[in-house]
């Protein structure tokens, strides 16, 4: 009988302790309580056209460039549900004081976020003010407020729009920096020779980098973006070449002899590549200076196309034909723990995702005469070896490469009738063509 009184006393004591704990904890910091299954949806975002803030005649052009660039960047980000402009109220704000919350946070726009601002050119300079408002939260709506100043040119305005879009993506995308300012390097034969070119991530600003006059392949940009490694043929054979963006010219890199192909940068700046200097193509690793050459694979290979685990830098995936048709293998960065990850068909061009979880590669699963299908892009989870197909029924697709944010993949596809560069989201949706002129192949996305 006396034990009926005891639990109450015990519970009371526990309660007091809990209350004390709670009091100390809650006074120290804020709590968020949330969970799964509450509906994970894309952020509904409205991006109203920026308004002119000065009476300059140049504003019209600049505003058009700015608004188009901003809209495309936000649309490409893959994390927003952009509200169509036809739903917007007639009066769009250019200043925080002009925001009419009820007009935005209820249908038809029914948006939760609103990007707006103004742009004004004066005396050759342009000033852009941009805000991001959480319009469903009228008490403290501001998420972001930015001001930019630069020369009043469309190029400068494009960069400003990229920066502002990246800020929005960074804030609302869980701390992953946006890719609006990233670059894509690729091989183009539009001049008659296969040379290395570069462009913005959206296909704008295409420009030629190398002028070797021979054949240059597999461009790979260094993690800090200062150097570009590629393989090129000259009178000595296929060698790894190096281009410096600091000096804007070729810089010397050792010649290893034999056939040297497909360089790949580790996050620390080491270079893995395939070399046949010891008679068979094997994977070698070398310091960024070209010294300290080490051989990682042995045997008759051929082993080509190494790619580093971009997160850890401690693993390398590569293609090997040691069992006949090319297959994808992984190994540690010192050559140990060799594992085959594809089981059939013809698998090439591996590329490791920035978070280290996934490999994407080109795979013809049923290879041989009379077999249906062609090269398609696949995504494999390295830990479980489960894969999904990303492209379907769309010509030959090859050379996939991850974007720095891990949300996009750039690749080469023959679906339009010639080899061109395309991008898509990493789940295979939102496919877009970036290049149209000549033949363009082997894209490589910058590290940031």
């Amino acid at each position: 009988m006396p034990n009926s009184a005891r639990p109450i006393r015990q519970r009371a004591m526990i309660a007091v302790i809990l209350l004390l704990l709670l009091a100390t904890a809650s006074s120290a910091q804020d709590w968020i309580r949330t969970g799964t299954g509450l509906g994970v949806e894309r952020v509904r975002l409205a991006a109203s056209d920026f308004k002119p803030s000065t009476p300059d005649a140049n504003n019209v052009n600049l505003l058009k460039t700015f608004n188009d660039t901003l809209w495309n960047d936000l649309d490409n980000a893959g994390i927003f549900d952009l509200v169509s402009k036809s739903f917007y109220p007639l009066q769009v704000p250019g200043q925080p004081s002009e925001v009419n919350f009820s007009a935005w946070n209820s249908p038809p726009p029914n948006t939760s976020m609103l990007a707006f601002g103004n742009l004004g050119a004066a005396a050759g300079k342009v000033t852009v003010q941009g805000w991001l408002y959480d319009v469903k939260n009228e008490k403290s709506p501001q998420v972001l407020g930015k001001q930019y100043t630069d020369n009043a040119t469309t190029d400068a305005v494009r960069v400003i729009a990229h920066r502002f879009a990246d800020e929005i993506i960074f804030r609302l995308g869980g701390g992953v920096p946006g890719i609006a300012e990233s670059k894509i390097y690729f091989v183009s034969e539009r001049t008659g020779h296969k040379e290395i070119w570069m462009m913005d991530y959206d296909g704008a600003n295409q420009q030629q980098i190398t002028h070797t006059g021979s054949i240059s392949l597999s461009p790979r940009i260094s993690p800090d973006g200062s150097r570009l490694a590629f393989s090129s043929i000259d009178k000595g054979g296929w060698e790894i070449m190096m281009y410096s963006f600091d000096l804007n010219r070729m810089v010397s890199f050792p010649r290893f002899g034999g056939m040297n192909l497909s360089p790949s940068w580790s996050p620390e700046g080491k270079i893995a590549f395939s070399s046949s200097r010891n008679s068979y193509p094997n994977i070698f690793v070398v310091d960024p200076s070209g010294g300290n050459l080490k051989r990682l694979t042995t045997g008759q290979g051929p082993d080509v196309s190494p790619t580093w685990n971009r997160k850890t830098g401690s693993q390398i995936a590569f293609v090997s034909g040691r069992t006949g048709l090319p297959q994808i293998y992984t190994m540690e960065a010192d050559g140990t723990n060799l594992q085959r990850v594809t089981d059939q068909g013809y698998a090439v061009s591996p590329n490791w995702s920035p978070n280290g979880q996934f490999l994407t590669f080109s795979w013809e699963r049923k290879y041989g005469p009379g077999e249906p299908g062609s090269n398609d892009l696949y995504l494999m989870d390295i830990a479980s070896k489960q894969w999904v197909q990303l492209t379907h029924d769309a010509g030959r697709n090859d050379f996939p490469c991850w974007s720095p944010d891990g949300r996009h993949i750039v690749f080469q596809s023959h679906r339009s009738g010639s080899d061109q560069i395309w991008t898509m989201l990493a789940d295979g949706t939102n496919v877009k063509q970036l290049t149209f002129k000549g033949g363009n192949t082997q894209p490589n996305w910058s590290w940031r």
Partner: protein
Amino acid sequence: MAAIANFDIYSEHSQLRRPLAWSLGLHLAFATFVVLYATFIQGFRGQGWGTGGTGDAMGATLVSAVPLPANPTESTNVLATESRGLAKSEPSVQEKEPEAIPIPDKNTKTRLKPAPVKSATQRKPQPETFESNQIPYGEGGPVNGPYTMTAGGAKGGFGFTGSGGDFGSQFGWYVQAVQRKVTENWLKYEVDPRIAEAKRVYLTFDIARDGHPSNIEIEQSSGVPSLDQSAVRALQRIDTFGPSPPDYSGSKVSVEFWFDYKR
């Protein structure tokens, strides 16, 4: 006489032996049948090892594992679940023990009489001192407090205020980003394929100002180790949630995050 008596006893024993043998034999036969039934017949009927759906590599889960916003999933309306939610647990009615017959003794009168146990209906409403932060076992969700959705129409997630501040109401977008990121990084195929449904698992962690999660702990286990592990791994996969809102003055935010698993 003695010899006959002894004989009688032995004959009785020998009469029992046969039924005993029968009984033993039948018991053994029944036990064997039960074991065979359980291992073979029942075993084949249930799901075997390795047939749990992951054999087919076309896992639809993988796409949602890509760090991209997942397709809109049907959300559980927190207001209309079958959970009893915040309802207080009914206290179990204690059965009164039958009164023992008092042994006449001198001490009987001085013994303290135990307080009468009141049934639930008789109990007076007590001031809510400690039950306010208790969550019914296996349930949970929003405890009482200001319900700080960013606005009426927003579906995705809600922030929550401790008594220390109003992070959820001020920075609802950050709470949603956290929720989205954790959900994206939670790979459901890591959970044992034989588990069809499990209780919620609750994790707590801190988010520093730079967005880095730390102190990841299982607050309440689901009872399924692989589910607990997958939840912890989801957090471990995340480098950053992005820096705290610039207007936020605190040094860190604490998060309680739950995972509902259903195959």
